[in-house]
């Protein structure tokens, strides 16, 4: 499985927001989104990744990009993770059915959790850029996302 490629329309999917609401393909339309798939809440690399991106959220906002952090963790785990990090990046849970959205985006690890992958979706709902880390232990730098946003 490889992460969804640029030029591909975003597939149908359903994630759960922090408030328990559904988040679907339609919620991505009309603005640029960066989907940050990450393996596990509270893992060290995931900690580092979300704090790194948090640091440059103003720069992302200046590009008109909104980040969403997606994992197969349940909502309470993600909520605790977000609070621990002091993060403002919205968490979307891919817990039920587990990994279905990650799989739809080609970002599901054989172990049943999300790969460490990034997908930039344009306002038209088409994938503009994507990247999957060579391994879940490798952290994609923020520079890669800005390179991807440059391609829009």
């Amino acid at each position, binding site marked *: 499985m490889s992460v969804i490629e640029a030029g591909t329309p975003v597939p149908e999917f359903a994630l759960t927001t922090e408030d328990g609401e559904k988040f679907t393909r339609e919620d991505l339309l009309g603005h640029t989104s960066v989907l940050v798939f990450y393996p596990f809440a509270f893992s060290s690399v995931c*900690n*580092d*990744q979300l*704090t*790194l991106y*948090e*640091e*440059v*959220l*103003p*720069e992302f*906002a*200046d590009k008109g990009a909104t980040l969403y952090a997606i994992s197969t963790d349940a909502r309470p785990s993600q909520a605790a993770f977000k609070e621990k*990090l*002091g*993060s*403002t990046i919205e968490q979307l849970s891919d817990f039920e059915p587990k990994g279905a959205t990650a799989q739809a985006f080609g970002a599901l690890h054989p172990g049943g959790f999300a790969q460490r992958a990034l997908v930039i979706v344009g306002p038209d709902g088409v994938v503009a850029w994507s990247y999957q880390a060579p391994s879940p232990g490798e*952290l*994609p*730098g*923020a*520079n*890669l996302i*800005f*390179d991807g946003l*440059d391609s829009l």
Partner: protein
Amino acid sequence: MHPPAPWRMRQGEPELLNRQEHVSDLRSAPPPPLEAADHVRGEPDWPLLVIYADFTCPRCALAHERLREASIRLAFRHFAIAAKHPRAVPLAAAAEAAGAQGRFWELHDALFEDPGHTDDPYLWEHAKALGLDLDRFERDRRSAPVRERVREQTRGGMRAGVAVTPTLIEGRTIVAGPPDAELIARLTATIRVPTFRKRTESAAETQADRKAEHEQ
């Protein structure tokens, strides 16, 4: 309701950013070349290693321990992420302020060797022990130019692909994590033996010259 972007949370409250404060190009770019303002220590002919690090990072403290006695010319750059640790930027700024009074490396070493004591009272103790002008230290570490320098180095690292600390840059190779024995051995093995031979030859030449003078 949050204010319109760009904004960030500070101490639990949304803060609207001054546009000049955050607009920056973060696309990929090579690591910035060394400049006069960089902090570098080690012999000029030792192999150069650039380290992006953070004084709150335990792995960086480990890197410091492993590199301290190595024959490596080390250039230190800040990678201070406020979102990761509330003391990351203040400690980086403190080190820069010490550097403004010629004591960057001394405070650098003190911070890594005593990581449990980095609150302001301990910074003041370090500053006093180093003989710093405390008033100037306080002004400098809170100043906009110092904070901007830390920010610039951090963002320069981000553009080069630095994502974690420590990250080491040797030539064009970027390695995340503390240096292992293999890396240090490989780097220090590149020290040129002719440097030693030249000194020996100079001594021999000096002896030959003195003998020639004596025989004249």
